[in-house]
């Protein structure tokens, strides 16, 4: 049926591999999607060499937001933080393999916004982080 709901998205939504929390963690950040109230928390462990050694997301949201969080966690484990900082809108759309209108885009990008705000040590996850 709808491209938006490719098998892979429904699969990651129903059976996420990286849902949960990390305790202890080196970085933790949480924020909401103001449009729908969806909430995501991301915990990271980072090695002394600056590589992400483990990552988890928690919270609630739609299939798009949950699947993209799961895919995002998968993609950053083993990567240097410097590379995580470079991720943007296009990285997420590529992982999802779909096109999104402006409202659903916010769902897809929530986890990346939260991730980057955490990595940069910001007080707030703003849209400008992911453009």
């Amino acid at each position, binding site marked *: *049926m*709808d491209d*938006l*709901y490719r098998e892979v998205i*429904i699969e990651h939504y*129903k059976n996420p591999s990286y849902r949960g929390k990390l305790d202890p963690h080196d970085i933790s950040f949480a924020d909401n999607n103001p*449009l*729908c*109230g*969806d*909430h995501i928390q991301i915990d990271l462990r980072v090695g002394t060499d600056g590589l992400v050694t483990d990552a988890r997301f928690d919270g*609630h*949201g*739609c*299939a*798009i*937001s*949950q699947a993209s969080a799961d895919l995002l966690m998968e993609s950053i484990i083993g990567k240097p933080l410097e590379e995580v900082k470079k991720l943007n809108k296009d990285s997420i759309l590529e992982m999802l393999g779909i096109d999104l209108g402006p409202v*659903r885009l916010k*769902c897809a990008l929530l986890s990346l916004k939260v991730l980057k705000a955490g990595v940069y040590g910001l007080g707030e996850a703003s849209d400008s982080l992911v453009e």
Partner: protein
Amino acid sequence: MTLNVSQIRKDFPILEREIRAGVGLTYLDSTATSQKPLVVIEAMNDYYRRSNANIHRGVHALAEEATTMYEGAREKIAKFINAASARQVIYTRNTTESINLVAYSWARANLKQGDLVILTEMEHHSNLVPWHMLQAERGIELDFIPVTEDGVLDLGMYKTLLDRRPKLVSFTHMSNVLGTINPAAEIIRLAHEAGAITLVDAAQSVPHLTVDVQALDADFLAFSAHKMCGPTGIGALYGKTALLESMPPFLGGGDMIKEVKLRSFRPNTLPHKFEAGTPAIAEAIGFGAAVDYLSKIGMDAIAAHEHEITEYALERLEEIPGVKLFGPPADKKGGVAAFTLEGVHPHDVAQILDQDGIAVRAGHHCAQPLHEKFGIPATSRASFYLYSTKEEVDLLVNGIYKVKEMFG
């Protein structure tokens, strides 16, 4: 007094639109904003093509015409809500600005630290955040009439709250999530007995019910044109004359003044005192046309039609396994059906329905605290208006079955 809905639907050009190739529009999102009949679109069109000019200060023909049309619309709107005088109707951008006007002007002049404002747990953010801001700035106190499990206000608790002598009771006439129609006249009567002023958020009631500000005895009443077949960019605040006259101005600038010196000014009389700068002229004219349109069809007939559709929708939705409905039964509510579907996020419900051109809204509908109360982050919401049909309800129900299949 039944509506000729197929005739009415022809008044709304958008209802003929294809959302994508071969897929028509099933618009079930009128609570967010209504569609616009051609007469409203054309009224603004005509204004721009024939009469456009700045108002009040001009003596040329266009300025006179525009002024007459702008003020004529105010008369129509006043009559629609049975205000005693058009001077009691202030044009604003929307319900939200109307409420903020009261919060900035009346409340900042009249409320001091410790003064109590009573709201309800089913308020839209527009009737919460202005009071949060005032609480932070002034130290006023807020308390809330609770919402019961079945989605109505707990009037017993309200009476107890009134013992604390609130200065203001500000509440929604109709919930945009539960659909609950609150007993506004009674709430106002009790507030007055306790010595409080009242503000009615009528964003959902004025579009769907006969609202009579004098019968309600409302002190302030706020609504938006875009939810009642009118344009975006304009709304109104009704207020009792003595209150409005006693209030300081809100925004400062052209038109709201009687006289300006280099270092001081004298405010204008009502309603101009609260309308600073060039107003939404075309929009006021569109608002007037919307009120004409609704009046001609008749608000009681519209309410009866919506009631019929809502009753049918609740019945059909209830049958679907996994669907949970929020709010009271059809006889206590307007044309709103908010629900959750087990195991599927409301965004996904709305997105999949959209594939079939069915427009419902998903999220917290600007009522996060109410959703929190019910322990859910979001709902899907179908809502109805004079152009809604039972066939559209059937399409919605079929769509929900499709969603279940995909996520099954």
